[in-house]
């Protein structure tokens, strides 16, 4: 649509009468197909096509294969008598009349061909031709064209002349007064590219001239920018061998080293005229002297010194001769041109910037404080012995790194072992006593990293638990010991992810292995003195210390190796993954809090959640935005693994939505978790303590929901004592059905899916079918309801949909109704509805709508809420009938033909 591209409506000029708008179903008229197009001769007779190789249209005589004389040749002369004057046939003898006419292949009359038609003296073409001449493979090949100039002018030229145009003028209406160049106001900054310096300078010189009032001027002739595409592989603005230099020789002239700018190349033709007298041919030293050339005296001395400058200055101002480097200062030149000479030749299409580039600002380095010492201060290092291992760990935790970094001790205090340790050597010992000796250096480093990470985590956890105990909302079942916290966390975390402990580091020593397993078990239970308890009391202090260390490291190693391995391999879909699903790490919780904030109009921090969100790389590229997380492969919200059978993952899965990402609705900890002990421990277990931090807000929301006006009414299914947020209510409901739900999901899809697939088509058939494109979203309920019976699915749907319903509009009381209606409505009625379909041009329709307005609205309202719909089948069906009558009656206006409509509009 070219019309859209025009910048404004006012510029659009409409000529003639528009085509009639096409009717709705009508197809645009096709052009006459090829087989229907006919060829007729000048008398209007149909000409037959005889085949492309047998004469085309002009073969035959009146569509016969004969001629006027029939089969007899026009001039048969027996060659017996007059052999000598055998007439020689030319090609014309075999041609038809058409071929000899004006447009034939051999026209008889003389016509000026294109090659000799007039070439206007327009500068654009001239320039293009010059460029072509310069870049052509044989430079100067087009010069011949210049020598032969036809006198005839082209039609456009003549037309323009008749309209009053004169050569050298621009085209356009005459202007009253030469428009003054707009000088930019110095106060106003102008951004963007600098204007080309030579753009309008020529006209500015006469700015001060006296201009009479009644004189109009023709617009200036503008030479457009040359957009000759660069189609060679030469450098920018490379011109090859200059044809004038090569063909006509410039030996007598001065080498104009700094010649540049288009004005010099503009008078190529003039130069040719001057040098025309010279003999053409290539001459010069490199080619030597030919045999026919007389003047062989100047073979070696065609160059004369007079061709070079001897002074760094022009001899006479104005002749364009100047030295290699000296600027032409005495010439009255514009500032920009002066710069130009320094720069050298300006390429075509480029111009000097009027403003110099702003130099890059360099900031000085920050000043150091006076008492700064460029030496790192290391924490005091305590020798790792068994006595002070606790102290060591505390230190390591506070420093956030393991203790075995090179200390500030002097090297004389180190023994060989420790130095070797520092250097990363494996200690030389008689027999390996610990698994750690079998480890490669790389593994040890990894181990170290894991330990650091867990230390940090432990520190965070400790801070959190402190905060929790300060809040005092709930007694802590365990407060991790400061010293062992890191182990606890690392180990329990590691073990949580792997339930089967088939890793036996001390298999050689069954006693030790047993102790180790006991230690692990203790650790899992969360006992802080796990180590002390499991160790053999008969051992010496040194042995105990050593074993403690070993156990801890082995456990860590186990955890780390497991995690590193699991990061490299993909789990089998059926086995491992069946336990866990991925859910978003951060979720929008605390709806009740936010509701109260909204009620108090305290928008801002209270109502805002901010998440880390990873856009897709391609999306960033398409939006022209740098990837905010260039190193991550994550897309969307960061996700964590959660137990698949956790009820919370299923809280808000919509029955209809098939999105693979399940979105847990809340982070709240299940109270029922304690009951299902039978399940294997998972990572979820470890986060028990973390969840407690929600208790304050939970408490708050509980209080608010008690006080607040929009308190959710407990539904009949829910116990009275559960007066928490509706989410937890639904939690409970869902939890009951968890098993059946998962079974149901696994075995067959919900009834709703079948409905969506099968029911609609049959219903559409059953609905009165005068309009197949009617809005079928409403008129399907009656038939639906009858055949929708499935107790199991109903339960499922109930549970999940209550949870779903409580999300978007929790302030509404959620009466618990059987689900059939709701399901049906939900199919199309998410969210705000679209306004009703009617045509105001029909007054009758308006009337109907007016009558049924309130009822319908009520009905719609219910539909909007949708999820809380109850058995109002009669009512809704009756309103459905009004609906359908609406949709029928509105067919009236649409039956109008588009022309009719258009006529009304215009």
């Amino acid at each position: 649509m070219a019309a859209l591209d025009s910048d404004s409506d006012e510029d659009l000029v409409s000529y003639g009468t528009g085509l009639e708008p096409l009717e709705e179903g009508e197809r645009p008229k096709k052009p006459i197909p090829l087989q229907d197009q006919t060829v007729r001769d000048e008398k209007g007779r149909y000409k037959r096509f005889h085949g492309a190789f047998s004469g085309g249209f002009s073969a035959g005589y009146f569509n016969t294969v004969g001629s006027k004389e029939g089969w007899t040749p026009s001039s048969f002369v027996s060659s017996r008598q007059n052999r000598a004057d055998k007439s020689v046939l030319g090609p014309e003898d075999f041609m038809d009349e058409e071929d000899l006419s004006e447009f034939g292949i051999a026209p008889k009359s003389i016509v000026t061909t294109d090659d000799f038609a007039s070439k206007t003296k327009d500068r654009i073409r001239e320039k293009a031709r010059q460029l072509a001449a310069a870049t052509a493979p044989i430079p100067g090949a087009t010069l011949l064209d210049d020598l032969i100039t036809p006198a005839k002018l082209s039609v456009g030229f003549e037309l323009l002349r008749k309209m009053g145009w004169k050569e050298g003028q621009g085209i356009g209406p005459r202007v009253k007064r030469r428009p003054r160049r707009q000088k930019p106001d110095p106060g106003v900054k102008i951004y963007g590219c600098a204007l080309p310096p030579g753009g309008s300078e020529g006209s500015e010189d006469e700015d001060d001239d006296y201009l009479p009032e009644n004189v109009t001027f023709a617009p200036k002739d503008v030479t457009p920018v040359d957009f000759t595409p660069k189609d060679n592989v030469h450098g920018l603005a490379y011109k090859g061998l200059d044809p004038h230099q090569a063909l006509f020789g410039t030996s007598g002239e001065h080498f104009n080293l700094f010649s540049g700018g288009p004005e010099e190349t503009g008078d190529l033709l003039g130069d040719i005229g001057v040098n025309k007298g010279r003999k053409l041919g290539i001459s010069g030293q490199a080619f030597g002297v030919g045999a026919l050339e007389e003047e062989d005296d100047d073979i070696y001395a065609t160059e004369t010194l007079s061709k070079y400058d001897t002074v760094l200055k022009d001899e006479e101002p104005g002749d364009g001769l100047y030295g290699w480097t000296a600027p032409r200062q005495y010439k009255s030149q514009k500032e920009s041109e002066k710069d130009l000479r320094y720069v050298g030749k300006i390429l075509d299409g480029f111009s000097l910037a009027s403003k110099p580039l702003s130099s890059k600002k360099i900031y000085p380095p920050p000043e150091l404080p006076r008492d700064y010492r460029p030496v790192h201060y290391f924490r005091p290092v305590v020798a790792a012995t068994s006595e002070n291992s606790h102290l060591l760990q505390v230190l390591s935790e506070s420093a956030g790194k393991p203790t075995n970094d090179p200390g500030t001790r002097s090297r004389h205090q180190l023994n060989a072992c420790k130095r070797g340790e520092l250097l990363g050597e494996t200690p030389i010992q008689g027999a390996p006593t610990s698994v750690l000796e079998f480890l490669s250096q790389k593994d040890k480093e990894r181990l170290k990293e894991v330990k650091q990470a867990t230390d940090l985590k432990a520190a965070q956890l400790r801070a959190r638990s402190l905060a929790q105990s300060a809040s005092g909302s709930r007694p802590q079942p365990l407060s991790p010991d400061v010293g062992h916290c890191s182990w606890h966390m690392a180990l329990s975390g590691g073990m949580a992810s792997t339930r089967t402990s088939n890793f036996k580091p001390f298999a050689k020593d069954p006693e030790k292995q047993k102790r180790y397993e006991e230690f692990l078990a203790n650790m899992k239970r969360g006992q802080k003195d796990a180590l002390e308890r499991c160790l053999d009391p008969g051992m010496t202090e040194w042995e105990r210390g050593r074993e403690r260390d070993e156990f801890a490291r082995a456990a860590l190693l186990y955890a780390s190796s497991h995690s590193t391995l699991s990061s490299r391999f993909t789990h089998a879909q059926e086995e491992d993954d069946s336990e866990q699903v991925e859910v978003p790490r951060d979720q929008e919780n605390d709806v009740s809090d936010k509701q109260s904030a909204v009620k108090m109009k305290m928008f801002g921090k209270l109502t805002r959640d901010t998440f880390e969100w990873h856009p897709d790389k391609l999306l960033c590229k398409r939006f022209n935005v740098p990837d905010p997380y260039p190193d991550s492969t994550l897309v969307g919200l960061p996700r964590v693994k959660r137990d698949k059978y956790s009820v919370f993952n299923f809280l808000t899965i919509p029955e209809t939505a098939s999105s693979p990402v399940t979105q847990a609705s809340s982070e709240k900890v299940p109270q029922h978790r304690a009951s299902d002990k039978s399940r294997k421990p998972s990572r979820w277990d470890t986060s028990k303590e973390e969840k407690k931090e929600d208790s304050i807000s939970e408490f708050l929301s509980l209080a608010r929901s008690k006080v607040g006006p929009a308190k959710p009414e407990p539904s009949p299914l829910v116990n009275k004592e559960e007066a928490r947020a509706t989410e937890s209510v639904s939690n409970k409901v869902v939890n009951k059905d968890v098993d059946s739900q998962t079974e149901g999901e696994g075995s067959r899809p919900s009834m709703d899916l079948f409905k969506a697939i099968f029911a609609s088509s049959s219903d559409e058939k059953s609905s009165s079918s005068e309009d197949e494109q009617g809005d079928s979203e409403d008129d399907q309920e009656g038939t639906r309801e009858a055949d929708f019976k499935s107790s199991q699915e109903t339960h499922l749907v109930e549970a999940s949909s209550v949870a779903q319903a409580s999300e978007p509009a929790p302030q509404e009381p959620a009466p618990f109704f059987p689900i059939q209606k709701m399901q049906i409505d939900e199919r199309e009625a998410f969210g705000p509805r679209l306004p009703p379909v009617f045509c105001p041009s029909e007054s009758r329709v308006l009337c109907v709508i007016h009558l049924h307005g309130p009822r319908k609205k009520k009905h719609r309202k219910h539909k909007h809420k949708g999820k809380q719909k109850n058995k109002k089948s009669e009512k809704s069906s009756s309103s459905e009938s009004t609906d359908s009558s609406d949709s029928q009656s509105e067919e009236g206006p649409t039956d109008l033909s588009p022309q009719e409509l258009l006529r009304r509009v215009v």
Partner: protein
Amino acid sequence: MAFPEPKPRGPELPQKRLKTLDCGQRAVRAVRFNVDGNYCLTCGSDKTLKLWNPLRGTLLRTYSGHGYEVLDAAGSFDNSSLCSGGGDKAVVLWDVASGQVVRKFRGHAGKVNTVQFNEEATVILSGSIDSTIRCWDCRSRKPEPVQTLDEARDGISSVKVSDHEVLAGSVDGRVRRYDLRMGQLFSDYVGSPITCICFSRDGQCTLVSSLDSTLRLLDKDTGELLGEYTGHKNKEYKLDCCLSERDTHVVSCSEDGKVFFWDLVEGALALALPVGPGVVQSLTYHPTEPCLLTAMGGSIQCWREETYEAEGAPG
């Protein structure tokens, strides 16, 4: 010598009905100006999309190819292509000039409520009642979306795009703003199901209309409430809202057949423009001039300021 700057005229509200066009496509689900405001698109419930010159009232082209009613459409920055989404769950990319379907993106599980081009018309963002926003790549031939934004818990009712942000309003009562440059998602809780959202023209604020008959002006960066506009009726339908061409007024459809104008700063009702007896379903504001298009029933209305003089003979 410089002439003194002409005194800036006070903002005028479009209240003169210039033209009423019967679109002939049953209910007009949405009306949208193109990028420069010279043309408009109407989305019909008869599966067609029509391109008009609203001032002259001429129909330029009809785009048919949707399988169900068309619910939203948008034009690209260079007016070369259109996108539309509808009840057939498909997002369609059209060539403006030829009227042909260039691409048809399928993948939404429900009807598509809203579509938007990004700034360079390389990506189409579509929001659907299946609670996802899908980003479709117009450049490649991949049938899958580049990314699916599935954070919403209920249907998406409105999506707007700036140069580096995606703003989405959802029926779950939240406004989500995906900032691509910062890699963050800001979610503002409004509570009531959101029907329409839009950026202010200076890009500092977001206007949110919700089903509690309230429009709220939120600060984009902090989420704080800057203004609240009430008086209209919006309880059940998905109605449009927008800001006037110079951000001076807040404009919203209403279910009582009027278009409401509020002063943006004071929050006072400036004008309640009666359009007709039905529900004003959709509206769109000219990007630079005080010109408003409203859709009611099967027709659209063009409104200009009182002082507006039609140039040339009306076509």
